[in-house]
């Protein structure tokens, strides 16, 4: 029963959503069911946020209680979660510090702490890309050499300084890169991967709808 009902729900929901795109929504019942199902998904998604809050609290609380290695970070996480969440949940009518509008505690923390920290994390990519490229691009074989040379010209082409350099060699060089590398080789490879992945996704969806694939429910 624990598997049968979810499999039936998956089958019916999948079938309704797949079939609905072939019928006009304004003229068929199935067309009206589809947006209804989509609203349900949004509502269920909202409720599950509670599960996340419980999990993050339990994991970090247990780590602090047992003074596990690095427990200070867990404590910091707990404090951050509650300091950020609680004032934003309280109604703004009580105080301008509550809610998530401009001037609220949430907004202040978001603008002055969260936003720069996120940008910093993303900025670290520049360091990691340089280090990974340095390690990975070695002319060990013919294929690796082609990859290395292509990456070099594309990197040059994507910045004004490099593009100026390429144009000094031949004014048409950047256009060749755009035509033959980006809109040629790159596009062909991307299409191959995208088509393959799309078929894989469709096949997986079909296996799920028909109940062949049930491992996502913990069943073999």
């Amino acid at each position, binding site marked *: 029963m624990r598997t049968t009902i979810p499999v039936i729900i998956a089958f019916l929901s999948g079938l309704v959503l797949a079939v609905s795109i072939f*019928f006009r929504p304004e003229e068929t019942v199935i067309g009206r069911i589809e947006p209804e199902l989509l609203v349900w998904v949004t509502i269920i998604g909202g409720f599950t946020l509670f599960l996340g809050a419980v999990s993050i609290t339990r994991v970090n609380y247990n780590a602090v209680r047992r003074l596990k290695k*690095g427990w200070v970070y867990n404590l910091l996480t707990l404090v951050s979660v509650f300091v950020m969440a609680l004032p934003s949940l309280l109604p703004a009518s009580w105080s301008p510090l509550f809610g998530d509008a401009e001037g609220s505690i949430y907004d202040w923390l978001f603008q002055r702490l969260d936003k720069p*920290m996120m940008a910093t994390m993303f900025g670290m990519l520049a360091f990691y890309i340089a280090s990974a490229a340095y390690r990975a691009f070695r002319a060990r074989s013919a294929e690796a050499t082609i990859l290395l040379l292509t990456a070099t010209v594309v990197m040059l082409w994507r910045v004004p300084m490099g593009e100026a350099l390429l144009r000094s060699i031949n004014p048409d060089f950047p256009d060749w890169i755009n035509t033959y590398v980006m809109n040629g080789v790159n596009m062909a490879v991307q299409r191959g991967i995208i088509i393959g992945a799309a078929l894989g996704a469709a*096949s997986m969806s079909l296996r799920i709808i028909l109940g062949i694939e049930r491992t996502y429910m913990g069943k073999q």
Partner: protein
Amino acid sequence: MMNLAESLSIALKKKSKKIPVLINVLLFFLLSFPGSVTADDTTGSAFRYERLNALVIVVVFSAAVLLYTRWARQGRPLFVRKIPGIDAVEEAVGRATEMGKAVLFIPGLQELDDIETIAAISILGRVARITAQYETPLLVPVRYPLVLAAGQEVVEQAYNELGKQDAYNKDIVRYVAGEQMAFTSAVNGLMMRERPAANIFMGAFFAESLLLAETGNAAGAIQIAGTARPEQLPFFIAACDYTLMGEELYAASSYLSKEPLMLGGLKGQDFIKIIIVLLILVGVILVSLDIGDWYYKLFEMA
């Protein structure tokens, strides 16, 4: 429990009494809904004929998958090429076991409604069976609560089925953060503190792919990644030991299961791929000869 595909397959084979029931279910959806078109609807076009081409593709694709699944059930041998990245999963868990360290599994950074995440959760089920078998610690940080619930269910089932309930802990799968970079920094911290021996990244990844893989590389872990996002593949290839590309991610669960029924789905998918390659070739020839307009229109979807 017998799944619906099996029921359908058996029903068709034995022409049992199940046929009317199954067909009725299908007919209920396929026919009764459009039948509710209002009487004053003179166009009679509840069905979108302009999307007939897509319907044909859906039907052919479904038929191919079902047919191969049926053949697989009948015991026909199906060849599936080796995928080194998937074979390496067991090796990576073995290494972690020897070193007495954990295995870190990240099921991507997308919601559960993303098919890549579902594929990742399926692979997690297989990986959890291996870690349960060897009693290797498993860490699964997730970004979305729904993925948390699904992940916990899958891992718990795997441990239960192997009789390792005592080794299971609800916090194996844990919610870390909803924001991409907060999630990344938390997982990077986890990698540097816990030093897992194997990192498995499966599912949808974005800008964090390299941040995670480089940190794992610096921490000295064996790393296996799999994603259908072409833009992230170069980063994983640069920083990981094995990378599953595109459709290999979706094949991984079936491949790991080694079940004929699951492998049948893969063969059906390959069959369709051959058809698509042929259709593309025909299109290229026709368009090159400047007589391909009609052919092009066949594939346009409104």
